[in-house]
């Protein structure tokens, strides 16, 4: 049988991802995580000397701490199975990627296992974040130098 013909049969018979349902779930879970983040930010604004803008740093750290607990107790993968991108896109998903890789590679020791593999999933996010920030800032700096735009 030809590959093309099989691909057609396979496409016909395989279940399609329920996109509408997945989107709604992602919206609810992602929205809820951000809402919890907003509550944590409010906590830091009210009880500590953080403004709306500076509160985002401790908020992010707290969210990653919560993600660590949920990951360790085996709950984050269930939330992610339900919420899909709703659990992956918030910073908790980044935390989950780091913590799950660390837990997984503990058996190889803390130096080679945890240290070497901690960022095996999240590393690409850091790479592309840093590189795109570099390119964007470089372009902007050059444009400002030539007087095309201002800061």
């Amino acid at each position, binding site marked *: *049988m030809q*590959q093309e013909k099989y691909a057609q*049969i396979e496409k016909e*018979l395989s279940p399609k991802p329920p996109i509408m349902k*997945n989107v709604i779930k992602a919206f609810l879970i992602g929205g809820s995580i951000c809402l919890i983040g907003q509550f944590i930010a409010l906590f830091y604004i009210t009880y500590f000397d953080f403004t709306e803008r500076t509160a985002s740093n401790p908020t992010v750290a707290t969210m990653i701490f919560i993600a660590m607990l949920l990951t*360790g107790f085996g709950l984050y*993968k269930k939330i992610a199975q339900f919420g899909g991108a709703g659990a992956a896109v918030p910073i908790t998903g980044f935390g989950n990627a780091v913590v799950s890789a660390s*837990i997984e590679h503990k058996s190889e020791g803390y130096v080679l296992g945890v240290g070497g593999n901690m960022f095996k*999933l999240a590393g690409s996010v850091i790479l592309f974040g840093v590189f795109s920030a570099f390119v964007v800032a470089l372009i902007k700096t050059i444009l400002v130098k030539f007087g095309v735009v201002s800061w």
Partner: protein
Amino acid sequence: MVKRGVLTFHSKPSIYATGVTAGPLENKKSVFAQQFDKSYEDERCDLPTNEDGHKQLMYDAVLIALSKAKKQPEKIDFLLTGDLVNQMTPSNFTAHALAIPYIGLFSACATSVSSMITAALLADAKHANWIVAGSSSQHNAIERQFRYPVEYGSQKGATAQWTVTAAGAALIGQHTQGTPVIDCATVGKVVDMGMTDPLNMGSAMAPAASDTLMNHLTGHGKTVDDYDTIITGDLGSNGFKIFKALANENGLPHTKNFRDAGEEFYGNDPSFKAGASGSGCSAAVFFSDVYQKLLTGEYKRVLLLATGALLSPLSFQQGDTIPCIAHAIELTMEEVTAP
């Protein structure tokens, strides 16, 4: 005339005994749980790492099969096992612990059948009296090997399968009356239909199963109706559906005696998506449910058709397709002739 890949074992080697071990989740959720010989409270069998637990599963399965036949490891001529971890270390360590001459076999999830075929060849050629064949998988160890860390949250689609924590071993020897015997087998070719999704193994493996089934039927001059059941290894609900559609396309209209171990393993529980997978899945079902039904006479003749996806994490990350294989082996339960 020798037909490529088609084997007939004239001496009809026997399967004397089988041993199946399974993890705690399988014990709780599998419909075959009652038929497993041993299950563990802990997914790592109370050992420090997943891979250690994996070794223990295989080791215990072999010992259970031997103890049922009252054999000691020293009496066994060959150990033929395999699994999915890097370089098959769980099998290698098991072989060391048992100190049986050993050949590690890798046919991914088809190892249960490929090891039985090799064992039958050794027995048929009178190179060995007793051979143990088997395969195993451990969920955490295999998920980490092929996909993501166990605790990583990624949404699995409806075609994803759950790697089982289970091991199955069979003790194979010279022909004896009153035991299921190995009649013939077909070694499959690698079939690659260009599938690339590692979370949809069923559709990648279905064409290989269909190819080997057709080769077996034509090579041995059989029809589907000659078998009480034709049971595939771990196609899962999606792959099994496609496999049946391919069979219809190949002129096999009756597929009601088809079974799939992967689809049945967790009793169609939707939280396991398309069902079970892993080299322990086919071994556990073949050596528990199917073997016992042969012993009780419910099945007279069965075709075990184990499928394997021969990918590695490296190959699919490099954008390669998923090559797949299927091996078939035919077991019969002979009527015991009165002395």
